[in-house]
């Protein structure tokens, strides 16, 4: 798994590549927590190169969404979610908890 963060004025664009499972989810969580620690609560997660995500990754997404939305200070949105991962998120009932975008420009512009 590889995570790259790009800071924009109104939000952070965080690209996640590779596989998020129980082994790598702690690193994924940490990246999201680091953004929060830096006072960044508007996060767009770019997932086009994400190959795989298990419920360990979903758990990290849920924790991040809760933390970002607290006090209305922000939100986590998902960008270019690959089909297989979108299907698993739907199965888990997660798609209604996250706005999704088809391109990062629109996602960044939404904040």
């Amino acid at each position, binding site marked *: 798994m590889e995570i790259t963060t790009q800071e924009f004025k109104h939000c952070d664009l965080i690209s996640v590549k590779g*596989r998020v*499972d*129980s*082994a790598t989810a702690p690193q994924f969580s940490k990246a999201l927590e680091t953004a929060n620690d830096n006072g960044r609560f508007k996060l767009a997660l770019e997932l086009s190169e994400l190959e*795989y995500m*298990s*419920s*360990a990754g*979903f*758990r990290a997404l*849920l924790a991040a*969404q*809760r933390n970002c*939305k607290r006090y209305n200070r922000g939100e986590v949105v998902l960008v270019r979610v690959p089909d*297989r991962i979108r*299907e*698993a998120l739907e*199965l*888990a*009932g997660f798609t209604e*908890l996250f706005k999704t975008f088809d391109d990062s420009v629109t996602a960044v512009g939404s904040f």
Partner: protein
Amino acid sequence: MPDHTFPAKFEFLDEIREQVANVARTNGFSEKAIYSLQLAADEAASNIIEHAYEGISDGTLFMSCTMNGDSIVITMRDHGTPFNPAEVREPNLKADLSERQIGGLGVYLMRKLMDTVTYKTSNSGNVLTMTKKRE
């Protein structure tokens, strides 16, 4: 295919998913089905590592992945604390963000992704068997 033995550590989930994908691909499962099988196997193995072997660093997980007619059969055995997926409550997928529970989601996904999930426990260990028919 004989049993594969893995140290019960998250670092081996990649190999577990790879084994399942190899058998499924060889036997003509679609890429969509292969992803589902990998996810179910990952969730099953993750639960064994996290719950059955909680606090145990040298546990062992045995997996076999075979075909029975048109169905793939994934079997996982462990010698940890019995963890019966049937006893895990189904998560409320309609709950809003603040009330959403993540516990039980792995088991829920296993049940949804596979045709059958059965669990047996005995003196010789715990056996989880999951099957899915090729479409």
